[in-house]
C-alpha cells in the first residue's frame, strides 16, 4: 500500500495518508524528536448503533443497549489470552474507550513499537466471545455502571440528552444498564463485530517517532482482508423539537451542577466541517471568559471557573451545550437564553470575531503538541472523511458573515433544555 503526504503550508507540518485494499484508512503523523509513539485503531461504532441492517442477511437487527462498550471490553480477550498480558511484554500503556459514535483501541510506547502495533492489529481483528467470558464481564461492567451512577458529572449529561432527544439513541447511556447488558449473547457480539469491525469501517492513526515504511510493512503482514462491508445503521426520525425543557436529579453533593443544551436541526450525517469550525468560533465569541455573557454570570455570582461550552455533534444529532456549577441553574439558563436571543438580534461585533478566531486557531494548533490528541482528533475526523489541515485553513480563512450565517441555525432558545443535579433535600 502507499501513503501520500498531506501538507500544511501554514504550519509547515505534514502527515501521511493512504487507504489499504481492505478499505482501512491509515494515517501516519511522524514527530521525529518525540519520545513516545501513540497508535489508535478505531471503528465508527458507538453506543448509538444499536439498530442496523445486517450486511449478510439484509435483516434488521436490534441489539441490547451498551453493546458497543461491552464488545470493547471483550475484544481484549482471545483464545490465547488477554491482550494486556501481551502488552506487558512490550511495556506499552494500552487502553480503549467507547463513546456515543466511536470505539477506539490504543496504546502509547517509548520502545518496542513494532511488537505493540502487531498486538493491537491482531487482537482487534480476532474476536472471541463465549458465554462464560460474557458472564465474567457482566460483574466488572456492572461496577463500572454503578461508578457512573455515582457521578453527577456524567448523569447531568445523560439526563440532558434524554430531555433534548425524543427518539435518537443518543438518549441512552453509553454503557447501557445492568439489565440491558445481562441480555447480551455471543451472537449479538458477533453480529456487531461482523458489521462494524469490517476494516472498511475502520481507521488506524499513528503519531510519534516512527517511519511510514515500517508501518506499511507491519500492516501488510497483519491485515486480514475480508470483502468490504458498508454498515447501515438505522436511526429513528428525530423531530426538531426537544422532549422536555427541564430535568432534575438529586445527589449527595454540595454544589449543584447544570447543563443547558440548545438542540439544532440535524442531518443524517454529521454537520459539515465548515459548520463545526464556525460553531466553535461562535461559542468563543458568545461564552468564553472574554465574553459579555461570562462577565454577567460572574458578576451575578452564578458561575465559577468550571463554566464552559461545547459543540456536541455526531451522526444525526447536534446541540450546543453549556455546563458548569451554580447555586441557581435556572437563573443561569434564563440569562444564557436571553443572551442568545440578543445575539440573534444584534449580531456579532467585528473585533469580537477577530479575537475569537485567533483563540480557536491556537487551540487547533495546540492539538499538534500531543501524539494522543493528534491521533484521537484525526480518527474522529476520518470517519467523516475530513482532514485536520483543512480544518485549520477553514479557521484561518473564516469570515464574520460565515459565523453570522451559522448563528441563524443555532442557539434557538425556544428549543433548549436544562438538566440540573441538585443536593439532596436533607443536606440543605
Amino acid at each position, binding site marked *: 500500500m502507499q501513503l501520500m503526504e498531506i501538507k500544511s503550508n501554514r504550519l509547515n507540518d505534514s502527515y501521511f495518508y493512504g487507504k489499504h485494499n481492505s478499505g482501512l484508512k491509515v494515517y501516519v503523523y511522524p514527530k521525529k524528536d518525540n519520545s513516545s509513539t501513540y497508535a489508535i485503531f478505531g471503528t465508527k461504532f458507538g453506543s448509538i448503533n444499536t439498530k442496523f441492517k445486517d450486511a449478510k442477511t439484509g435483516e434488521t437487527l436490534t441489539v441490547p443497549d451498551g453493546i458497543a462498550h461491552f464488545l470493547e471490553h471483550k475484544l481484549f480477550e482471545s483464545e490465547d489470552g488477554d491482550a494486556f498480558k501481551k502488552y506487558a511484554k512490550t511495556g506499552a500503556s494500552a487502553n480503549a474507550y467507547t463513546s456515543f459514535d466511536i470505539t477506539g483501541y490504543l496504546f502509547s510506547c517509548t520502545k518496542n513499537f513494532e511488537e505493540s502495533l502487531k498486538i493491537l492489529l491482531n487482537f482487534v481483528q480476532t474476536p472471541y466471545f463465549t458465554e462464560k467470558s460474557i458472564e465474567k464481564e457482566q460483574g466488572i461492567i456492572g461496577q463500572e455502571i454503578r461508578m457512573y451512577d455515582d457521578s453527577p458529572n456524567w448523569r447531568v449529561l445523560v439526563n440532558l440528552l434524554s430531555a433534548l432527544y425524543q427518539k435518537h439513541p443518543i438518549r441512552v447511556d453509553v454503557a447501557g444498564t445492568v439489565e440491558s447488558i445481562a441480555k447480551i449473547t455471543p451472537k449479538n457480539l458477533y453480529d456487531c463485530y461482523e458489521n462494524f469491525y469490517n476494516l472498511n469501517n475502520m481507521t488506524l492513526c499513528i503519531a510519534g517517532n516512527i517511519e511510514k515504511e515500517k508501518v506499511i510493512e507491519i500492516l501488510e503482514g497483519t491485515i486480514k482482508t475480508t470483502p468490504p462491508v458498508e454498515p447501515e445503521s438505522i436511526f429513528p426520525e428525530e423531530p426538531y423539537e426537544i422532549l422536555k425543557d427541564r430535568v432534575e436529579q438529586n445527589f449527595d453533593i454540595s454544589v449543584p451542577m447544570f447543563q443547558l443544551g440548545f438542540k439544532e436541526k440535524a442531518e443524517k450525517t454529521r454537520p459539515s466541517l465548515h459548520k463545526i469550525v464556525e460553531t466553535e468560533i461562535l461559542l468563543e465569541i458568545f461564552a468564553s471568559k472574554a465574553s459579555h455573557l461570562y462577565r454577567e454570570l460572574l458578576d451575578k455570582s452564578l458561575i465559577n471557573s468550571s463554566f464552559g461550552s461545547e459543540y456536541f455533534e455526531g451522526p444525526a444529532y447536534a446541540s450546543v451545550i453549556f455546563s458548569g456549577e451554580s447555586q441557581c441553574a435556572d437563573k443561569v439558563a434564563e440569562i444564557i437564553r436571553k443572551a442568545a436571543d440578543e445575539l440573534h438580534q444584534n449580531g456579532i461585533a467585528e473585533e469580537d470575531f477577530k479575537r475569537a478566531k485567533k483563540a480557536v486557531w491556537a487551540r487547533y494548533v*495546540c492539538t499538534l503538541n500531543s501524539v494522543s490528541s493528534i491521533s484521537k482528533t484525526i480518527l474522529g475526523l476520518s470517519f467523516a472523511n475530513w482532514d485536520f489541515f483543512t480544518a485549520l485553513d477553514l479557521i484561518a480563512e473564516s469570515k464574520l458573515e460565515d459565523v453570522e450565517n451559522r448563528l441563524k441555525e443555532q442557539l434557538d432558545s425556544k428549543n433548549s433544555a436544562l438538566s440540573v443535579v441538585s443536593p439532596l433535600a436533607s443536606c440543605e
Partner: protein
Amino acid sequence: MDNVKTYQICEGVNFNSIRETRFKTGRISITMFLPLANETASQSAILPFLLTRSCGKYPDFTSLNKQLNDLYGASLDADTDRVGEAQTLSISASFLDDRYALYGETISAEVTDLLCEVLFYPRLIDGVFAEDDLEQEKRQLAELIDSEYSDKKLYAKLRCEQVMCKDEKYSINPLGEKKEVLALSPQKVKEAWERALKLARIEIIALGDLDPEPILACLKKAFSLIEREKPCDCSTEIIKIAEKAKEVTEYQDIAQTKLVLGFRSSIAGVDKNFFSSRVMASLFGGTPHSKLFLNVREKLSLCYYCSAFYERQKGIMFVQSGVEKQNIVKAKHEILNQLEQIKKGNFTDEEISATKLNISNNYISINDSLASLDTFYTSQSFDSKKYSPSEYAAEIEKITREQIIAAANATSLDTVYYLTSK
C-alpha cells in the same frame, strides 16, 4: 538534567529554562512553596486565583481575558495544591509559539510581561486587594472546596488521608477551609501575598522554544523590588510505621461503596530506596497486569477499578476501589492477600520486567508534554539531586526482586476507610 539550565534570581528563587523546539506552544510557570499550616492555608490558597483574575494594567476580568484572547487564546492558569506538606501556589501561562501567529505577532514577550504584572502588580485599592475581586474569588474557592465532596472517589481518598494523618500537616486541605475562606478580608490576603513573595521558596520554569534571557531579566527586575528573607522551611514529617490499623466507615447516599486503604511505606522523600517502593506499588496495583487488577477485578469480578498509588513525598501508599456493599470484606481481604504475596516473593520475573517497562514508558513519555515536564520538575524542587525523566527510568531499571520484597515488607497498613450507603 542536561537540558535544564538553572539560574538563581535571589535566595530561594530559582529560574529554570528547558529549551525544546518541538512544541507548538510555550509555558512559563511560577510555583511558590509555603509550609501547610491551619492558620495560613486559606489566605494563601486564594492567592493564585485572585492574582490571575485582574491586575493593575488590566483592572477587570473581561479586559484581562480579552487581552489573553488577543494573544491567541493564551491561558493564565491558577492552581493551589501541595507537594508533601508544602502548600504550592502556582500561576502558569500557556501560549502559542510565535512561529504560528497568523499575523506575525510576538506572543511570548507579551505573555511574560503579563505574568509578571499579575504576580507583582495586582489591582489594589487603598493599598489592599479590591473588595469585589476578593468576594468573587472567595465564593469560587468555597465552591471548589465543596466540589471535592461531589466526586466520591476523590472524596473517599481525601477522607482516608485526613483520618490517617489526623495529627500531621498532611491532613490540612491545601485549598483551605470553606468557613475561613469566606471570612477572609482584603487586608489579610494582602499580607498573605506579601508574605509569599518575601518568604516562599519560589521555582519558575520556562518550557518551549523560549529565549531565557528576556524572561530572566523581567523576573530579576521584579524581584529586585522585593525584600526577600530566608525562605521558610517546607519539610515533610515522615511516619515510618503504622501503629495499629484503624477502620473508619462513613455514610452517604451512593450506589457503590468506595474503599480506600492507606499504608505507611517507611520510604520517603530523598531516600533513594523510593524507586523500589514505586516499582512495588506498581507491581501491586499500577497496571492492567498488576496483582490487584488481575485478581480483584479479573479473577473475582469484584470491581471495575482497583489500583495502588505511592506518594513518595510523604512515604505513603493508597489502594482505591469501588465495590458492591456486600463485597467489602471480600475485596479488602483479597487486596491485603495480594500484598502478602509480594512480601513473600510470590511474583515472577516477567511481572518484574513488565512493571519496570511500564513505569519507564510512563516516565519517558513525560518528555512529550510541557505540562507533565513542569509537574515533574516542580515536584523535585526540594531534592538535592534532580533527575530527568530518562534518568528516572534508568534508576527504575536497576531495582531487584529483593528490593521489591524489602519495600513490601517495610509497608504497614494504617487506615481502612469505607464510604458506603446506609
